[in-house]
């Protein structure tokens, strides 16, 4: 076959690019852009997770501070006695509204001195002013991230009734 039959009648510098060139460029650009978009998405999701974690930590810390205030405050003995297990769903922290709700849980274990050791006691036993006692509190916050994964963090605390 005579190859010259398919040759362009235009001079080389006027011919422009072939369809193959254009397609190759588009494919390369598309693959690159898709990769970068994926990377960007992953980083933005990680940033959102980190922000959620900070928010959850703020929630847990405020709850622990609130419980400390109850144990040490003016109404200390009755306030301390009221510290008990609880669970709450929170949709906003301060002025920030979160996409997914945070589930805050407070787990309380009470110990009172018997002889030389602290032993676990139930909530039905009344608080006695002359018997040292404390409550071990774990404030945990759980949340679900955008990708559907469940995360949680926990803060520990040891709270005793104020004596001053």
């Amino acid at each position, binding site marked *: 076959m005579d190859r010259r039959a398919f040759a362009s009648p235009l001079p080389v510098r006027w011919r422009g690019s072939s369809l193959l060139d254009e397609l*190759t460029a588009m494919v390369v650009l598309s693959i690159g852009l898709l990769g970068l978009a994926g990377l960007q998405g992953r980083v933005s999701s990680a940033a959102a997770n980190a922000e959620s974690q900070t928010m959850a930590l703020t929630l847990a810390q405020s709850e622990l501070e609130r419980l400390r205030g109850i144990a040490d405050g003016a109404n200390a003995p009755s306030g301390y006695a009221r510290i008990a297990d609880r669970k709450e769903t929170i949709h906003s922290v301060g002025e920030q509204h979160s996409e997914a709700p945070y589930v805050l849980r407070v787990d309380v274990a009470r110990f009172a001195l018997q002889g030389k050791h602290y032993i676990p006691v139930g909530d039905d036993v009344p608080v006695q002013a002359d018997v040292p006692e404390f409550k071990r509190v774990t404030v945990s916050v759980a949340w679900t991230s955008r990708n559907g994964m469940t995360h949680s963090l926990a803060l520990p605390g040891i709270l005793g009734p104020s004596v*001053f």
Partner: protein
Amino acid sequence: MASLIVAMVLLGIISIMTLFTLSYGIQNRRALAVESATRVVQEAAQAGLDQAVQFFRARTFEIASTWLTSAPGLSRWERCAPSDVSVPCGAVAASVRANYWRYHDDGRADPTALDMRDAFTDSTGAPVQQLVTSAGDYRIAYDVHALLCLVDTDMPDLQCRPSSDSAAPENNGKAAYPGPYAITLIAHARLSESDAEAVKAIRQAIVKETIATRRTEGAAQSRLGVVPGSWSDAGGIDGRGNYAER
């Protein structure tokens, strides 16, 4: 060919822009993780202080009696040397350091860390040194050091009794010190990641607080409570175990 070159150049420019955004995102994430660990270790140190307060409340009858004797195995307090800047003696000014007593138990690997095992037990009744060992994904380790001050109520600014004082335990010949006392607690908490094979502290915190005896109206005996305003996180411990405040 020209289109391919243009596409590669475009891709290069976008990649550079994306990498800058990524590095900012990664730095931001790292900063948040550090902040998060700092807040958790601070709470861990506070838990150490609070546990120590409960420990001393459980040992009220020994603090200013048995523990002040020089009997081997029973003694828990020893005078701070004026030049001792290690934890806990380094937490008080050199001019008054010798008036304080540091908690000291010769039978322990770290003799100045409180041995709290004989006051606290886990759910099975086994003795535990720490009531709090983890916080979410972090492992927690803390130890608490203590300084005793036998308060001289005759002094207008309530100083600790020096060894030269006739009412000091070394000189009064009594089995127990009858006066009020204060205990300065220094908690040192370390945080490590719970999935780490080798435990390596990623963050640490040191907090200080003072508790003192006080007799409330109508109470049969004085009780130990936290002195308001005594809490501080200004301290630090260097590699040699010396205490210094910022």
